């Protein structure tokens, strides 16, 4: 059995007076893909954003509970958020290439970390773009603006940008919901390869996607974690009635 990389216990999140997460307990294992599914507004994205403290940016959001990355409490006052986000990368729903060249986009995180050596940067660009299955398409136009790429390519640039900083965990917030089916499939295949080296936590609306790529699936409903089990079990033989209803499309 692989070991846990992130453990969350009794995580509650309040927006002002409204409690959006009612005590979530979850463990994410290393080198696995964990999918989080559930209807809109169930708190799965909110929970994902607790894991790299992106909710800190929302003034009214207040998180309690305990989230540990390799045993360290990431909400401890002494914990460095900047360092956390280097170790726990994030890919958003909308592809967000910066209005720079593809090259500058990919090395953004490395340059932040102070890497200046041209050869190191060049090598990182090639490796991460290859991992993101984009190298062959863009190798001749690395210095063109990333805004000129298609949506699917832009999303893979965003993934390459995260891979370049070599995080331990990659969080993905519905990374394919704004893309066409072909681009989505490319990204799914890429994730399966990345599993060898990374731990991936993916929020998705697409249940087929969850069943295709994930090892474990967590089902959220109205701010509660209803069920968390190996993906096969969730889809074939769920314990809870709510899970079964959702999987079979009876609501949500």
């Amino acid at each position: 059995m692989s070991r846990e990389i992130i453990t969350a216990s009794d995580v509650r999140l309040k927006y002002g007076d409204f409690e959006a997460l009612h005590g979530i307990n979850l463990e994410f294992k290393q080198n696995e893909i964990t999918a989080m599914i559930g209807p809109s507004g169930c708190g799965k994205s909110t929970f994902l954003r607790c894991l790299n403290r992106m909710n800190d940016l929302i003034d009214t959001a207040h998180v309690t509970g305990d989230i540990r990355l390799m045993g360290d409490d990431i909400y401890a006052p002494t914990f460095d958020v900047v360092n956390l986000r280097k170790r726990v990368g994030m890919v958003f729903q909308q592809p967000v290439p910066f209005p720079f060249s593809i090259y500058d986009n990919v090395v953004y995180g490395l340059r932040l970390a102070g890497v200046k050596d041209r050869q190191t940067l060049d090598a990182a660009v090639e490796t991460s773009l290859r991992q993101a299955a984009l190298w062959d398409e863009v190798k001749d136009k690395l210095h063109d603006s990333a805004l000129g790429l298609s949506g699917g390519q832009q999303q893979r640039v965003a993934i390459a940008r995260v891979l370049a900083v070599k995080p331990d965990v990659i969080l993905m917030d519905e990374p394919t919901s704004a893309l066409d089916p072909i681009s989505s499939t490319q990204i799914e295949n890429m994730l399966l390869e990345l599993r060898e080296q990374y731990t991936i936590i993916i929020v998705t609306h697409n249940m087929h996607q969850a069943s295709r790529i994930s090892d474990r699936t967590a089902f959220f409903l109205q701010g509660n974690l209803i069920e968390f089990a190996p993906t096969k079990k969730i889809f074939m033989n769920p314990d809870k009635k709510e899970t079964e209803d959702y999987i079979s499309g009876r609501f949500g």
Partner: protein
Amino acid sequence: MNNDEIKAALTSKSRSAKLERRGKIISFLCIALIVIAVFAIFAFVAVRGIATFVGTKVTLWNFLSKTAWAPGTTDASGVPKLGALPMITGSFGVTLLSALLATPFAIGAAVYMTEISPKWGEKILQPVIDLLVGIPSVVYGFIGLSVVVPFIRNTFGGTGFGILAGTFVLFVMILPTVTSMTISALKAVPRRYREASLALGATRWQTIYKVVLRSATPGILTGIVFGMARAFGEALAVQMVIGNAALMPKNLISPASTLTSVLTSGIGNTVMGSLENNALWTLALLLLLMSLAFNLLVRWIGNKGAMK
């Protein structure tokens, strides 16, 4: 309804179609009036301005490069002394220096108001900046005359009038313009960019200068050029503090002049149609062409850096 009535109803224009056409005509007339006015001004200034060079010994090159400005007198070879270089230098000097001085302050203020303390910025600083834009230029000029000029006189010596005084006054005048345009440019940077940058482990400061300012550069440049256009065209406040001596400025604190200051102080004292008068129109033409150049520059920057 019989057939004739139906035919009439189908072939005549409906009420809404008529209204539509009336609206189109009215709005077209409005824009036509503006276009005609602009062209008329241009033509008028151009005709007067070009008259300086027609049938006289003044050449365009002399006008732009000679430093002696004494309309009505001639030099040894009988050519009228119409060298506009001192004014051109003065105009560009105050414009570039004030823009150079205002830019860092404007960017700093805009970053504070949009990135660091948006609430406070929105409530208190934005109204202050709007207020600064609305202050009449004579007030700036008067404050320049009674505060800035004596300050320069006491600090650096001389009369206190000159390009430096003009720069300070223009700096305060264009600062709100550049600041508010920089603010709009920063606000136009999508929130996603900031989130994506922070999620990659950037600090807030790294995010501001590596992503936000970089993405907003075309907008900021546009703001700076607008500020420069305003500085270049400003007449009254500059005239009050620059010294109005049509001499080549020796340094930043020697009395100088700008295209606008010579125009405003001279246009009432010359006879229409005389060479002295035409020479001033040539200065006006130069001003007009420069503001056209500033406009084209703004458009060029806008097209080049449009955020797709």
